[in-house]
């Protein structure tokens, strides 16, 4: 990477501590149920658990057999059963069924439920209702934070997003605050906390209370500043197609808990391969933040270097060869393997993206972000729907249209919704209802955001059926918050300037130079100004709840002050992580991203479909 990175970036604290802490706690809890026992694990806890412990760890603590929670009768014959679950009503109900079935069969066992990261009162209420309270012991495993990499920590709580922002249930607020509290006691004390969003504010409050109740030992801070941000402050960024390598891999192959499964099309064999993607993978580490167009060049350069390194062995004598084999060969082989893997992955990405007319899709996205040729974007989306191309993709474009334009014209909304339901099924009525509730896909309310004159023009235009005239006027009639924010913060660079993606000049490079992610721009601005002063208009447009508070007095201008913990409540994308890494390099910061879960457009929208509950 060839940008003018500052050399004095501070060292990151060692996050692997969190893993050891979680593992030791789990072991402690398992020991609370002495003797042989079978362990039932909730399916979405398996990958996180795999990152901190393995089977032999569990076996050492007398776990006999492992099962996945499947909500059906169990086959275990052990007389002690331990359930490791998320605090969910349906899972607890299933456990009650298990216990009651045993009772009916006259079978006696000991049961233990370990809720992670915490228990909820509703779960206990279910146990009580079902008459098994007292028959089971309950514990909490405070496994809040899973480090996915040197600078990414995940709470692995994808449901945070839907529960908090759609249902308005604040059950995870305290969880987020406790996670922050843990980081504070391990790597704090923090000197400054900035934040924006309703949930951020509540999390801050809840955290502060916990700090007050606990005692903080005086120690040397390793993390100086914290930034809390709600996902609903910026829905635009996660709705955009990702084009930075790591984000692209996530969009296409879905990275789960820092691990990706490459199918046969990548491995060019009949089995698929699970691969850890993190900074330990030297090849990946160099391309993860690069715009996809640079990746090929990098990989071929790397291949040439590798060839040279291998070629060295020509003309070696036996002794030299021996040294070569023992010292270098293994590293080379490893690199060779990584290289062919990422080349194959890139190839597969290329093929997939070419097939789905990615170029046209990107063009539409960029037009929406810039706010021109909206009429053409709408007909592109319409055709997309008409052809029944990917249901999620169509929804993504509709939402992007709505959030950039501050809602759809009633006529467009009606027609696009009808066509969407025709193409993908009437049950998406529920999806639309959810999206409206969240403000992701709404009808423009005439008069609400428009001036009188503008709404008059808008009305005049609405009555016309001819599309062409509408096009000329509609940009006038729609003054959305995004447009205003975009102007205010300069989110969309002027399109007539050249943008060299090899030498990025700002965070816009993560979207091909077309858009600076709003979330990261806000963070940049606040850090630069050391607060919200001068950003009043921006916070008003975002609908506020911003804050900046000073806590412990920073003893000195230590490195810790340049280490910034950014906590995304409701999820963040790999593109945003890349953007922050870039910002860090430019300004001499190091960012540690804490997120409730890694998200992307598909996950965000899938959480809002109504096929569960």
């Amino acid at each position, binding site marked *: 990477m060839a940008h003018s990175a500052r050399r004095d970036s501070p060292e990151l604290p060692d996050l692997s501590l969190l893993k050891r802490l979680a593992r030791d706690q789990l072991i402690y809890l398992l020991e609370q149920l002495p003797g042989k026992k079978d362990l039932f694990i909730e399916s979405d806890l398996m990958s996180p658990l795999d990152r901190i412990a393995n089977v032999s760890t569990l076996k050492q603590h007398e776990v006999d057999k492992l099962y996945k929670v499947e909500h059906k009768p169990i086959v275990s014959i052990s007389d002690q059963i331990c359930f490791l679950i998320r605090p969910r009503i349906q899972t607890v109900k299933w456990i009650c069924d298990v216990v009651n079935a045993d009772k009916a069969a006259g079978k006696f066992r000991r049961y233990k439920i370990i809720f992670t990261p915490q228990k909820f009162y509703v779960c206990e209420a279910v146990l009580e209702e079902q008459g098994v309270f007292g028959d089971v012991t309950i514990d909490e495993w405070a496994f809040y934070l899973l480090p996915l990499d040197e600078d990414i920590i995940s709470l692995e709580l994808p449901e945070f997003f839907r529960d908090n922002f759609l249902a308005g249930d604040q059950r995870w607020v305290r969880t987020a605050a406790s996670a922050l509290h843990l980081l504070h006691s391990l790597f704090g004390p923090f000197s400054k906390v900035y934040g924006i969003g309703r949930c951020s504010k509540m999390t801050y409050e809840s955290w502060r209370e916990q700090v007050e109740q606990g005692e903080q030992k005086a120690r040397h801070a390793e993390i100086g500043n914290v930034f809390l941000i709600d996902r609903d402050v910026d829905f635009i960024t996660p709705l955009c197609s990702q084009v930075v390598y790591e984000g692209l891999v996530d969009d296409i192959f879905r990275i789960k808990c820092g691990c990706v499964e490459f199918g046969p099309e990548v491995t060019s064999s009949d089995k698929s391969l699970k691969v850890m993607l993190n900074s330990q993978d030297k090849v990946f580490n160099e391309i993860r933040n690069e*715009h996809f167009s640079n990746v090929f060049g990098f990989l071929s350069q790397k291949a040439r270097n590798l060839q040279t390194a291998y070629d060295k062995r020509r003309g070696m004598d036996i002794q030299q060869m021996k040294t070569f084999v023992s010292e270098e060969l293994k590293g080379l082989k490893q690199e060779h393997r990584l290289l062919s893997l990422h080349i194959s992955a890139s190839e597969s990405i290329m093929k997939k993206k070419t097939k789905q007319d990615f170029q046209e899709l990107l063009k539409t996205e960029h037009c929406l972000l810039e706010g021109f040729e909206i009429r053409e974007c709408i007909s592109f989306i319409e055709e997309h729907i008409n052809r029944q191309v990917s249901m999620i993709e169509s929804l993504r474009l509709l939402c992007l249209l709505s959030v950039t334009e501050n809602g759809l014209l009633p006529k467009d909304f009606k027609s696009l919704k009808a066509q969407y339901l025709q193409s993908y099924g009437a049950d998406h009525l*529920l999806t639309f209802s959810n999206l409206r509730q969240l403000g992701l896909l709404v009808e423009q309310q005439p008069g609400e955001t428009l001036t009188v004159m503008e709404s008059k023009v808008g009305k005049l235009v609405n009555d016309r059926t001819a599309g062409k005239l509408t096009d000329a006027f509609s940009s006038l009639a729609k003054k959305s918050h995004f447009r205003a924010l975009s102007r205010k913060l300069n989110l969309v660079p002027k399109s007539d300037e050249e*943008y060299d993606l090899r030498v990025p000049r700002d965070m816009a490079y993560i979207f091909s130079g077309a858009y600076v992610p709003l979330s990261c721009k806000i963070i940049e601005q606040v850090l630069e100004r050391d607060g919200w002063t001068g950003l009043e208009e921006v916070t008003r447009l975002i609908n506020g709840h911003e804050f900046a508070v000073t806590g412990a007095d920073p003893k000195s201008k230590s490195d810790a002050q340049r280490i910034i913990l950014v906590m995304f409540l409701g999820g963040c994308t790999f593109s945003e992580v890349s953007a922050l890494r870039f910002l860090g390099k430019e300004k001499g910061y190091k960012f540690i991203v804490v997120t409730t879960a890694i998200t992307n457009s598909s996950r965000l929208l899938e959480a809002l479909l109504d096929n569960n509950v």
Partner: protein
Amino acid sequence: MMKSKADEEDYWNSSKYNAFTFDDADDELSALKETKKAVNSIGPLLAEDDEEDWERVSWSGEPVGSISWSVKEMAASNQRADKEPAFPKISTETPSLSKSQSGISLSSLFKGKPKGGNLQTFNDVLGDSSLRLYTPELRKPKSEYKDLVSDWSAEETVQRLQQGKGVTLEKFRSLQDKLLLLDLAVAAHDGNAITAVLIYLKRTLCKEVLFRELESRQTALRHFIHYLTESREQRLLLELLRALGRTEEAALLQYKDYKNIADENKRRDFLKSCLSLQFGGEDGNHVQDHYTLLERQIIIEAADRKAEREGKQEVFQKFPRKASILNMPLITTLYYCCFYHYNEPEGTFSSPLNVRQTFKISEKQYFTTALAARAKLKNWADVDAMFNSRNWLGFSKKKSPLSFQRVVDILQKNSAPTRVLQEYVGLVSDAELRIGLAQKHKCHDIVINTYRDMKDRQQLAEYRKKVERGSAEERKIDELLSNQQIRWKN
């Protein structure tokens, strides 16, 4: 400001975005292929033990010994026992693999370098595996807390709820006390505590009073609605929504229940019963359409299943139905009708025209779907007929509600032969776009003619290199290039 069309094209051709185009992927892809070949050809030294290393060293991501792996193993062995469908057994080459246990997982990934100062001591504490410092509560399971003291104040009670400690709520008996408790929980921003209080309120207050009080407490109300949703107390939830006058939500909630009805006739009847609900906006019409569609699908399905069984209609023999049409979206149904019932008179339920009429499908949508269906059948005559229109002089002219670029795309995705594609590529009005498509689909004549019309000698000469040597195309280019009559622009 609006930008002109030309501006826009410039925009996309400007170097700014050109750095990355998936459309001209061919060159990049072939470069990548080269690289790949190169990488693969490197180093015969490693040929021998490569394969095993994949599994053994750091890679498989799910090393033997990982928890996911082990659970799958367990499921597989259970499957043998009770024959219930479980995960597929993953292939395991166990013997040579046992070494890999610690290969990938855990701390080896993030080697902890203890740093100076306090952290060091912290590590030492951890090393002693005494976690008690951080989790003092863990020593006794929470369930064993006995609340002997029941005189906690409302504030203390909420605080204990927040900390997950045992509480007794029974002493809060007056409405005032109950509401105080609720408001305190809301003020603490703790959803867990809010729901806990709500569960108590639900048990000890009659619906009317509870609903009334919740109406002015939006945060608590949302928690209550979520709680009822999660614990599947549909009836109470409907009552609540109706009491609050949120009839549209109530209607959707009731409608949603159709998903739990598997039998198609019962489902249809249920949908019919939903028609009287008070939906918001256009939703009532959408539900009506849903009902009408299912009703029609049931009729079509019965008729077609019979026809298929009797084997009298050729199309069902040649293209057996892959799945039933029941519960498919409208457009899928239309596609199905265009596929199996294209030429039926408009009066039948399965006639595409009738479907179009009933559901007010737009011309463009209808065209798109019919085109895809007829192309799938490789019925090029039908495809051709779709574009024909005659003007007042009786000349036929190809017209399409869809851009010809899109038409080509649809045809190509249904593997239309070049001969067919060529015709429609030629109808793309924008010259640049036409050339691009023609090159992509190897319609040489169109490329050549377009360059000729553009008088672009250089491009034509360039293109000569791409056609087969000694082919008719090459001869045609040569003729053009030596034609003195053309005034080339370059």
